[in-house]
């Protein structure tokens, strides 16, 4: 702090000149720039240390044969770990399970979130109550919610199991995945609903009224006015939800622990680290998950174009 204070005090007039877009750097602009770097430095250092460095380290580990059960056998083995993972049925099954959970939960959450947003938007009475209540699934600890679902589906103890003829869906692959998707939908619909509500409230009421006067039905107004105007909000909400859903871990860990072919890629990575103690394979799975997430993000951002989140901040 002490080294920059003298420079900063000379700021006033030149800084404003620089802000108007003059290319040359005045004393004040340089001071402003230095302050900017100082202010972001701590955040950048923490993020680099905890996220960027480990990813680089994971790339290095993924090229090693490295098992904590036999650390003396550590050796550079090139892409052999990748070959092992990509030729393993466990990886592909986990990837399929993850994709199925992601696609179904995000799609259904979008529809339900839209309905929730419309209820919240149109409700005149008790809007606060409904909004507060619908925030509870969003806020509740995922693990706590997962236990609720697990006990609800436990035969001879759970109300849902009892309602469905004392069934035990968590012991069956397809049924367990359906239960996981339901739990995921319950947890994330409020978030989706609130994001969409914010988009919905930006649509001018006049536009809806004009269309109503012209004889458009409710469905026509929804498809022709509401949806197009909400496209940016929908895309942002979808991107967040898709990336979040792809890394699903807590719910599956509690509900099935990944048994009966219900494990997601995150569960697979965790098992490789803590049950097989295989750092090489575990890191390889980490890198592959990272690549999958990057692909999903790129697909969405190409769809966004300039409406990508943060792009307007970046231009400032």
């Amino acid at each position, binding site marked *: 702090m002490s080294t920059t204070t003298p420079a900063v005090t000379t700021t006033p007039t030149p800084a404003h000149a620089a802000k108007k877009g003059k290319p040359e750097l005045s004393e004040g602009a340089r001071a*402003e720039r230095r302050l900017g770097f100082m202010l972001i430095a701590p955040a950048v250092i923490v993020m680099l240390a905890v996220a960027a460095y480990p990813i680089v380290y994971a790339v290095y580990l993924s090229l090693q044969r490295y098992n904590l059960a036999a650390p003396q056998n550590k050796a550079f083995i090139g892409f052999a770990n990748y070959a092992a993972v990509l030729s393993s049925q466990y990886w592909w099954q986990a990837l399929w399970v993850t994709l199925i959970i992601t696609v179904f939960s995000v799609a259904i959450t979008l529809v339900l979130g839209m309905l929730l947003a419309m209820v919240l938007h149109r409700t005149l009475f008790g809007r606060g109550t409904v909004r507060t209540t619908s925030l509870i699934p969003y806020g509740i600890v995922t693990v706590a919610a997962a236990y609720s679902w697990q006990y609800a589906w436990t035969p001879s103890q759970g109300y849902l199991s009892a309602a469905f003829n004392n069934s035990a869906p968590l012991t069956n692959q397809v049924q367990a995945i359906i239960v996981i998707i339901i739990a995921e939908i319950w947890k994330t619909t409020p978030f989706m609903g609130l994001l969409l509500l914010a988009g919905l409230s930006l649509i001018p009421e006049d536009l809806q009224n004009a269309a109503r006067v012209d004889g458009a039905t409710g469905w026509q107004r929804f498809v022709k006015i509401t949806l197009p105007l909400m496209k940016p909000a929908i895309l942002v909400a979808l991107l967040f939800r898709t990336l979040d859903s792809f890394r699903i*871990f807590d719910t599956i860990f509690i509900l099935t622990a990944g048994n009966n072919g219900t494990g997601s890629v995150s569960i697979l990575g965790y098992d490789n680290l803590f049950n097989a103690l295989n750092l090489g394979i575990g890191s390889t799975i*980490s890198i592959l998950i990272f690549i999958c997430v990057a692909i999903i993000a790129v697909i969405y951002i190409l769809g966004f174009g300039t409406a990508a989140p943060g792009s307007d*901040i970046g231009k400032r």
Partner: protein
Amino acid sequence: MAVITPQRRIGWLSANFVVIALALIPVLWLVSLSLKTPTAILDPSFIPSQWTWGNYSGILTSSQFLRPLLNSIGIGLISTIIAVGLASMAAYAIARLQFPGKGVLIGMALLIAMFPLIALVTPLFTIERALGLFNTWPGLIIPYIAFGLPLGIYILSAFFREIPWELEKAAKVDGATPFQAFIRVIAPLAAPGMVTTAILVFLACWNDFILAISFTSTIASRTAPAAMEYFSGGSVFTVPTGPISAAAVVITIPIIIFVLFFQRRIVAGLTSGAVKG
């Protein structure tokens, strides 16, 4: 606005009712289980046939839950305070100052916000063991700060853009340095945004499970959600349904309080930037 007919009103009211019921049933089920005696747990009805406070008195006198609860509160608060502090500085710089590399910073924050956490668990586990951070408070606090920062930078830079900056200019004309202008003028105006951010970052720390089970091995640093896994029943053959449900209710109570008191702020924080952006 169309005319509100009685049928329409009933329609919306019942829609409200459905929303509230769907949101609350799984929570009420946990409350019900937590109040059931071990015998009553074997009865799937929603209303307990036999009531007991035993599950609560059990966990609230056991260090197996109290210590993790303390860890959750301590680790969550420390991570939140540091993350919001660092994020405010960075967000101020992004919203107000001219310097190169802003786009890179935003990109990096977004990338980290979207990171699959499991991808970092393996390398961080190795690093933490080497540095002696494994199974310590800082071993969780440092990653929580790192993952709170993108959220904080994102929400706060959206809030900071709404602040009337003429006031800062006025302060500078009166002879304040940019640093003084930040502390004396802007920080008080930014306080609501910082409260919002703090709530969301704290909820994220409170909620975390994957890092908590990966980087802890004893109750010295295990947080409450991770500790529930290790509860034991009356015998090895008994699933501790009652105690786990009671613990789940206890860790849900702060969330419900937050939601009741800060509903507007939470909604504003969740939707800031996302829609304008």
